[in-house]
């Protein structure tokens, strides 16, 4: 009788200790899982922040690029207006002028053609000459495309 009770108690004790041990092991496993989850979450947050920063930088780069292109398109409009003005300024008629001052007009037109050809070269990616870069006066610039040919020239109205 006594030995049976002792056996039952022993079994209960062993079961209890085993259960407690398993519970502790489960807790440790849960803890490890939670730690791993925490690391993953932190990594995900860091990655998200990186993506957001990249998106912000991209957006700024796009805005900057758009601004540059808008400035360029405005320059184009102005260049065309200047070209029209050169032909029509103060009721100028290049036909009549050419009859009156043929040789002078021929020189002007040939110079203009040469300047326009240089503008095409620059627009296709040619390097500026030192003279073009140094030009700051109206008499030194290429009047066909000053914004492109003479970046240091500031136009005053």
């Amino acid at each position: 009788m006594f030995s049976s009770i002792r056996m039952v108690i022993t079994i209960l004790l062993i079961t209890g200790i085993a259960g407690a041990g398993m519970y502790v092991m489960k807790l440790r496993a849960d803890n490890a899982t939670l730690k791993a989850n925490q690391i993953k979450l932190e990594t995900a947050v860091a990655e998200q922040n990186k993506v957001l920063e990249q998106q912000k930088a991209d957006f700024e780069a796009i805005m900057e690029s758009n601004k540059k292109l808008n400035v360029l398109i405005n320059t184009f409009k102005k260049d065309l207006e200047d070209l029209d003005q050169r032909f029509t300024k103060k009721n100028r008629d290049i036909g009549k002028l050419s009859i009156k001052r043929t040789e002078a007009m021929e020189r002007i037109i040939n110079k203009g053609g040469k300047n326009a050809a240089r503008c095409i070269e620059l627009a296709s990616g040619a390097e500026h000459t030192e003279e073009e870069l140094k030009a700051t006066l109206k008499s030194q610039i290429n009047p066909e495309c000053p914004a492109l040919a003479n970046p240091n020239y500031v136009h005053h109205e």
Partner: protein
Amino acid sequence: MKMSHYGTYWVSFFKGVILVLLILALTGCSIGGEKKIKIFSVEKPREKLNYEMPTPLQMEEIKWIIITSANADEVFKRLEDAGIDPVLFGITDKDFQVLARNFAQIRQKLQETNNLLEEYKKYYEDSGNNQ
């Protein structure tokens, strides 16, 4: 029939061997567990399209000649003296303005396209947007 102590050991030993062999046959030597296949991905950036920028144009010079009713004979004589065929392809002063405008627009389009190309290159190569 009573078996000797020695015989009983041997029978137990053979039973054990048969049991081990049976287990091996059933599990196909997989008791140690299959080796797990590890699948991993390595991000390889897209190859860069390293085209060089287009070669700049080199324009040839054109000589314009203004011809009026007053200087026509003189111009043709000058051409003949220089050994050039006395023929000219003419446009009016108004068409000259149109030509100048067209020329300017072509130049602007060229500049715009080159600029866009540079901006694309800068955006996708400098800022690490390699998609």
